[in-house]
């Protein structure tokens, strides 16, 4: 192995990437999008709920709500329950209160959006209790722990998405372009051996993921030190190696750049989706456990959100290292087999 030749391949790939609009878009897009995560940390506007009111008591209730809950509820009258329920079903309002005389009102809530459902339920119970002249008494005092910045809970997901995008999409396209334009042949008739060519490409992909991830963490003002920082870095390196290897395998088998992009788009979603939906059901969990993206996402969540130490992320680092090793060996085999077949 010749370090000079490997460095030359890495530097050349960086120079090319900086002047390749497709690569720049693939790299800059997640970076720019990550700026929105920082916006989540800013003081948020209170959630305003759109609530419809109907029934014979609707007039009094509307007046009360406009006065007592103007900062949380926007009220609109409905001629009957059917029209109001239709509006809820169609997502035009978050809830409908049917206000008929008696002990209890009925409220129809839009269950399609779980993010609104629970806070709206609390708001309605509190406000309607007050309307009935009763005080809604909570029986538990809630104390929030881990009330860090919201972005640290979203960044692990975004870093995983970025690592997959760069590794799979960028590397597959870059390698397919080298094959298509014949520059790979130009490298192969130099003194560089197969291992150096692949290592150069792999290091480029890994460094690109690390650089973009570091910028993303810096933009979001995430300060990691000690073991969590080292763990996050190792997770990102192992993840980047795995996804770069997948990208190179795609690039090797694709006949053109456009074919490589099509294949990597097909691979990209199945790599990401199970990882982020792993907690939804045992099936999604089992599907996610066979993917490196699952371990990267879970490990980064532990490191970034919970400042986990080596021991805590060991369960993610070991499988991820296994993926990186196996996929790298597969890439070398695929390189030799594919180019031998073309021979």
């Amino acid at each position, binding site marked *: 192995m010749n370090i*000079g*030749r490997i*460095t*030359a*391949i890495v*530097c*050349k790939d960086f*120079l*090319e990437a900086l*002047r*390749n609009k497709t690569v720049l878009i693939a790299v800059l897009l997640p970076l720019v999008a990550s700026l929105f995560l920082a916006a989540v940390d800013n003081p948020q506007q209170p959630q305003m709920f759109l609530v419809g009111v109907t029934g014979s008591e609707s007039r009094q209730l509307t007046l009360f709500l406009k006065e007592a809950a103007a900062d949380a509820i926007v009220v609109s009258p409905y001629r009957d329950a059917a029209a109001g329920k239709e509006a809820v079903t169609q997502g035009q309002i978050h809830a409908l209160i049917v206000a008929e005389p008696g002990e209890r009102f009925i409220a129809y809530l839009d269950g399609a959006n779980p993010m609104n459902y629970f806070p709206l339920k609390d708001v309605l119970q509190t406000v309607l209790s007050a309307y009935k002249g009763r005080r809604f008494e909570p029986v538990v005092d809630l104390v929030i722990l881990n009330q860090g910045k919201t972005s640290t809970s979203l960044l692990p997901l975004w870093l995983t998405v970025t690592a997959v995008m760069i590794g799979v999409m960028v590397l597959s396209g870059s390698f397919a372009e080298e094959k298509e*334009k*014949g*520059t790979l*042949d*130009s*490298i*192969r*008739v*130099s*003194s*560089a*051996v197969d291992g150096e060519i692949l290592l150069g490409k792999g290091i480029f992909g890994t460094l690109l993921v690390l650089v973009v991830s570091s910028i993303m963490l810096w933009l979001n003002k995430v300060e990691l030190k000690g073991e969590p920082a080292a763990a996050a870095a190792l997770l990102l390196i192992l993840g980047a190696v795995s996804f770069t290897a997948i990208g190179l395998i795609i690039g090797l088998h694709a006949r053109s750049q456009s074919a490589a992009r099509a294949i990597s788009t097909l691979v990209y979603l199945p790599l990401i989706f199970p990882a982020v939906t792993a907690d939804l059901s045992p099936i999604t969990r089992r599907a996610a456990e066979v993917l490196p993206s699952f371990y990267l996402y879970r490990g980064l969540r532990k490191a970034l959100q919970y400042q986990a130490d080596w021991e805590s992320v060991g369960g993610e680092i070991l499988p991820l290292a296994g993926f990186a090793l196996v996929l790298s060996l597969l890439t070398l085999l695929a390189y030799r087999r594919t180019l*031998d077949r*073309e*021979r």
Partner: protein
Amino acid sequence: MQRAVIAMTQPAIAVENLVKQYGQTLALQGISFQVYPGEVFGYLGPNGAGKTTTIRLLAGLSSPTSGACWVLGQPTFKNPALYRHLGIVFEESHLYERLTGMENLRFFGALHGVPTARIQELLETYDLVKAAKRPVRTYSKGMKRRLFICRALLHDPEVLIMDEPTSGLDPTSAAVIHAAIDHYRKQGKTIFLSTHDMSEAEALCDRVAFLSKGRIAALDQPKALMRRYGQPVVVIQLKPAAEAVDTLEKAVSSDQVSWEDELLTVRLPLDEPGLGAKIDQLRDWGQIISIHTQEASLGEVFRQVTGTKLP
């Protein structure tokens, strides 16, 4: 043009019974030849004859179905050490279009461990100093080809393989490449030149091989081939009398007569029986402007040997 003396020592390139099959297609059907140190060897054939396949085999980018090839005594397949002595100019300029000329040469120079001074020297030789800081995508085809030749010469290889180096170039750019080949030959290097330009081969090559349908149809010095296969002709240019044109065109075979610069040109084989009588007959039909003998061109010899015509 003075030919380099061909040293009859160990061949710089040796090809022995080389066969290459792609699926059902037999691209090369057992070719054998040797190229000697200091020789410019022309490899001639139409598109699809197997020239590029041979070059990929010689470059080690492809493995033979059977047979073998060696460069400087070393097998070419899976032998990275060979590339220290071998330079290859592919038919297409495989360069990084987004990088500048200088960045391309620096990259390939780093792969070969070549100092920057060598890059500068080549840029000056091939008149690319001013363009060196521009992205390659802004280069003309001729400039790209010159840069690609610089890339192939970076490590000063002993053997240079060139695949159609002047294909699609204007005469000025082609002349630069021809000068480079000549310059390289004078340094005693070996050049394997694949081309379908017969005049290029005739002017530059010490020996040529005719490749047709995956086989070598003939191999020798251009002059020797022309002597062996070429048929010298007598070229008669005449201004025919108006009333004699129809008669004349009927009297002479259609492949022997053509109109050139408003003159009727008749080509008759030098050994044709009754040649003198035919010339006398032509004199009766019009005014003879010129009459001279002409050697067969390499293109005509190729057509005669292989039965195919090069574009």
